[in-house]
Structure formats: C-alpha cells, structure tokens
C-alpha cells in the first residue's frame, strides 16, 4: 500500500474522528448513571471493537439513557407551593370583572357520544372570577368536558362559548410531561413564549418566569433538568407553566393527585386565593379539596350534569339534624332514654362509646340532648352536630337509585357517615403524624 504524504493527510481526519468518537462514547458510558438494553461492559466492547465506529454510533443511538440527571426527591420538608400572603397580594383591576359580565365558559347541549358513554346535553356555566369544581366518578365525563372546552376534542353536538381568548386559557393536565433535557426555567419560559404574549422586555419575561417557578415552589431547582424530577415536582412545574401567562381562565385537571399533603394544602390555598381575580375550573376526585376551594360546583355522572351551582347551597340541601354523642360510660342507658324522646327519629350506636342521633329539628336536639344526658347522669365526652359535606351531597346525587331503602338518599347518607367516622379516625392519625414530623424536624434542626 502506498502511504505517501497525501495519503497520510487523508487518513488523519478519519483516524482522529474515529478515535475522538470512541473516546467520547467511552467517557459518556463511564459517566452515565445508567445505560439501556445492555450492561456497561458490553457497551464498552461494542464501542471498542464493534465495527468501529459503528459501535459508537449504535451506542449513541440506542444505549444512552435519556434521563439527564438522577431523580430529585420531593422536598416535603420545605414549603412547596408558596401562597402570596394576603396583605402583599396585588390587586389586578383587569382581573376583577363587573358582576354582569356573564360566564367565562358556557356550554349548551354539549354532546359527545362514545357509543353509549361520553357526554350528553351538558350545559356548563362557569361564572367569571369563580373557582368551579368539576366532580364526578371515574368515567363521568370530566376530562371530556375539559378537553372540549380547551379545544383538544370536538363535540358531536352543542356549543362552547368562551368569553376569553384562547391565549387567555391555561391548562394543567393531571400528568404533565416535558422534554427531559429542558431545565425547569426553560420549560416555563417556553410556556410563556408559546402563548404569544405581547413582546415584553427580557427582564420582564425573566421575572414572570421566576415568579411562576417561585409560586410553584420550584425556585431552587430552576436550573435543573426536569428529566430527574419526581412526579410531584413535575406536577408543580405544570402548575408553574399554567400560571406564567397570567391566564384569565385556569383549568386544573386533578392538580393535587401527585402532591404531598403540605404541597396539596398550599396549592389549594393558592387556588382559593385566586377567587375573584381569575376564573378557575378545578377537576378533582378528592371532594374535600373541591369543597375547600370551589364556590361553584358541577357534578357529573354518566355524562350528564346532575347539579350545578353554589357549593354551599348543595351542602345545605343535604344538611340534616344529626348529632354524634360520645359518652364515657354505658351508651345503653342513654340510648334508651333518647329513644323515648318524641323529637328523636332514630338512635344508632357508633363504635363502643358513641351514638348517632337523628332528630326532627336542630332546635329540638339542641334542647333535648342535654336534658336526656342529665337524666341518665352519664359523663359526656363530646356532642357535635354531624355536618353535611360535599361528599354526602355528591354520593346522594350520584349513587344508583335502586336502593331498597325508603329514602333515595339513605344509602348514600349512611355511606357518607361511615366515611365521616373513618375521616375522624384518619384525622387523629394525621395529627399524630404531624406531631411526629414536628418532633423529627426539631431533632434535625437541633442536630
């Protein structure tokens, strides 16, 4: 073979490129926390002797792990979602609409038939400035309603009227996803640029992105690539993206599903603080969340809207004169005494030391219970009215009607009370957990 100067000059780039590529791939392989399909030593062999440099190209195409950094644990001991303190909240005049401005979203006869399932003649009306909770069992059609409102799906029939421009609507899906090689800052900045906001200065744009990240509790990880984020952090990032454009209508689909208890509470507080300043549609299967933040509620079942209106009005409808009495002694005597009272409609034991008392009216119970207890001379631990909640109302509306009970709401109400008793138990556990966490935190601080 003739290896003249020209030939060597021709071969030099080939050799350099191949060696450079192989070295790059080997270094990348060593630094990579994980590789795909094959173990690292086998990839090293392929890179070195696998028909060089095709082995290196094969590794780049298939073997490299796309996750750029190890998963960042959710920082539950830090403030997750930062709610602006009330006094510092800046009023925004253009977000406080006149009362007669009409609903932000109004659907008329919205129908989307998926062969028996779907939506049927749904008339949703979301008042401006409200937090509208959309609740319903799985498959009720919540996501379909939101998808049609946001233009992601079409309806077979009906109409959607929006009184805000498309650019004024922000959506946060239940499972947000982002390109893993972007940083949190870049994701939110991309969200800002996508909605086509009027040209603003670089510093103003940067400020808005940083503010959204800080509000979502991600200010500390703004420069981290999101591929390593936990699900909770990704959900917060989705929320930051929704906030960055200062939307007039914020649509949140199950926004708390991946958050820890602290993050969930703070997000709910943040959403609640938006009432009157921007319209929020809040879809959730956690009815307690909806009750805490939503002033308007829509209940869907089997694609039909069963109720729409004030959350409080719905709860009030299901408020019944009922008390839970806890006694430090024999419940049998008290139960017998209560059953003799003319105003009492039902007495049932709950556990070993409690009684559930149904009465004809609130006033009768408030007067009669102390008297009955005094007659029995038993020690009273507690006596509280059993408040109706959204859960009870929801179950009353959505439970099947084919119950054998004389009241259509009976089964649902019993179910709701069981849940209530379980909730009381869970709250006790939660309080104990919080206490333990406080102690743990104090121990850490003192270390």
């Amino acid at each position, binding site marked *: 073979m003739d290896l003249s100067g020209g030939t060597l000059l021709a071969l030099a780039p080939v050799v350099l490129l191949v060696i450079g590529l192989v070295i790059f791939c080997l270094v990348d392989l060593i630094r990579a926390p994980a590789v795909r399909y094959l173990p690292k030593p086998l990839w090293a062999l392929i890179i070195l002797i696998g028909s060089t440099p095709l082995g290196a190209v094969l590794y*780049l195409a298939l073997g490299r792990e796309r996750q750029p950094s190890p998963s960042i644990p959710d920082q539950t001991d830090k403030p997750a979602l930062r*709610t602006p303190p009330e006094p510092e909240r800046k009023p925004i005049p253009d*977000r406080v609409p006149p009362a007669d401005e009409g609903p932000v979203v109004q659907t008329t006869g919205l129908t989307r038939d998926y062969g028996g399932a779907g939506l049927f003649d749904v008339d949703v009306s979301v008042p401006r400035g409200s937090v509208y909770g959309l609740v319903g069992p799985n498959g009720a059609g919540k996501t379909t309603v939101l998808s049609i409102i946001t233009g992601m799906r079409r309806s077979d029939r009906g109409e959607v009227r929006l009184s805000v421009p498309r650019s004024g609507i922000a959506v946060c899906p239940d499972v947000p996803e982002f*390109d893993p090689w972007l940083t949190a*800052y870049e994701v939110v900045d991309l*969200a800002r640029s996508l909605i086509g906001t009027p040209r603003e200065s670089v510093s103003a744009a940067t400020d*808005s992105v940083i503010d*959204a*990240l800080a509000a979502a509790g991600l200010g500390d990880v703004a420069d981290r690539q999101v591929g390593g984020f936990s699900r909770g952090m990704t959900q917060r990032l989705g929320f930051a993206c929704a906030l960055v454009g200062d939307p007039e209508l914020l649509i949140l689909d199950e926004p708390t599903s991946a958050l820890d208890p602290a993050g969930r509470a703070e997000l709910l507080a943040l959403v609640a603080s*938006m009432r009157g300043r921007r319209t929020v549609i809040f879809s959730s299967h956690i009815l307690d969340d909806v009750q805490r933040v939503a002033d308007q509620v829509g209940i869907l079942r089997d694609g039909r809207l069963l109720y729409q209106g004030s959350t409080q009005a719905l709860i009030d409808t299901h408020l019944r004169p009922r008390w839970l009495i806890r006694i430090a002694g024999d419940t049998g005597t008290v139960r017998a005494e209560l059953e003799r009272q003319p105003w009492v409609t039902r007495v049932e034991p709950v556990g070993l030391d409690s009684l559930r008392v149904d009465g004809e009216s609130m006033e009768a119970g408030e007067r009669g219970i102390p008297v009955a207890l005094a007659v029995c001379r038993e020690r009273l631990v507690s006596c509280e009215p059993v408040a109706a909640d959204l859960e009870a109302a929801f179950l009353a509306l959505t439970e099947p009607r084919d119950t054998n009970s004389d009241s259509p709401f009976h089964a649902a109400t019993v179910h709701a009370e069981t849940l209530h008793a379980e909730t009381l138990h869970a709250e006790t556990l939660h309080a104990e957990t919080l206490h333990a966490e406080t102690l743990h935190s104090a121990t850490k601080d003192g270390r």
Partner: protein
Amino acid sequence: MTLTGAPRALTPRRSRPMSTWRLEWLRLTRSRRWIALVAVYLVFGLIGPVMAKYMAGLLEHVQSGITITVPPPQPKDGIVNYLSQVGQIGLIVVVAIAAGAMSFDARRGISTFLRTRATGMWALVAPRFTVNAAAAVLAYTLGLLAAWYETALLLGSLPVGAMLAGLLCESVFLVFAVAVVAASASFARSTLGTVGIALAALIVLSLVGSIGAVHDWLPSTLSGATVELLSTTQLSDYAASLLTAIAASVLLVAVAVARLGRREV
C-alpha cells in the same frame, strides 16, 4: 403577574429566551442527536474515498485463489462510495431523528402542553420541520465536503459545478424526506410508527422510481443524483424532479399541519 408576592429563591442562570425554534435546537444538541447525525455522514464522508482508494489492496489481502480484477479507482468513486453508504444509513438516521421531533403527540402530557398553548399547529410544525431539514442538509454537506477533501487527496479533483449541483439535488431530497416524516406523524402517534410509515413511503417511492415513465418526475430520483451528475447528466435533467420534490414537500407539510391540527388528544 399575580404572584409577585411569593418570595423568590434563587435567580436561575440567565439563558436565552425560549421559543419553539430554540426548543428544536436544544432537542438536537442536548439529546446529542446531532452527534449521531453528523457522525454518520462525516464518518462515511471520510471513509468512503479511502475505501475506494484501497479496496483493490484490501481485496488482494483477503482473496484466496480467486483472481479479482478491480479497475483503477476514479475520482468519482470516492463520492459514489460515500453516497452508497449515506443513501441508506444516513436516510434512516435522518428519518428517525425527525420522527422523534415530529411525533409530539406520542406523549399526552407533552401534547397537551404544546397544543393548549401554541397559537396554531403551524407554530409547532414549522420549527420542527425546518430545524430537522436544515440539520440533515448540514450533516450531508459536511459529509460531502469530507468526501470531497479525501477524494481530492487520494483520487484526484472533482468538477465543482457537478458537485454543487449534486449537493442541491441531495439537499432537496433530504428536505422532502423530512416532509414525508412530518406527514407520517399525522398518521401515526408513536415515534416508531412515524418512522415506519415514512420509511415505507420512501421505499415505495424508490421502487416506483424504477418505472421509466415517471422516473424523471419523482423526488427519489434526486437521491444519488450526484453520481450521475459526475458522469453524464446535467442539473437541468433534474428540473422536473426538483420541482416535484419542492411542491410535494410544501404539500406534505400542509397535510401535516392540517391533519395534526384536526387530531384529537
């Protein structure tokens, strides 16, 4: 911004403002896809002429009793070797990388993020199509320049006019291939499905190109045109193919925008 009351933590590093164009640039660079793209074209660009030069010598070393007569390599053989390699492997890499960018509906979360914010489907498709087509053309050009350099050193000089005409033809074909990927993404949601449809379409087009009557009008004729341009043909012989490829690219991108815009997520 309504949340300015929230305390800020760290100020992130100042980076250039994001846009859908920058997103595509970062997709190429951060995910290292550009390395695979450039490496394939550059490696074959550098190796092709070397193989053409020393093929006879290599065959002499491996032959056992059989006499193989290889004609002395001509300058154009360096480019022929390059094109024969990148015409298949390079095209597959281009299709795979473009499909990764175009199939944004493959993941519902990303799809929702983009679709509910973008002002229109064109705003999503245009940067993906343009950046990937430009990257493919750039990688091909780098490979061709490398092959040209090696050929000049090892085999002799090549006509500049024919080389530039060939570059034009191959570039238009690569743009057409990326447009095929864009249209394919509107028929399949997954990246793999998009790659499959696009490659199938390009293979079928290549087979149809063997029919003499339509050969001169098909975009697939542009693939490998450099070889012919170095031998017998002229750029004007490819005018029909060039026009068809450009028109088809525009049409395919329009189809992609229309179909992706109508797609439900």
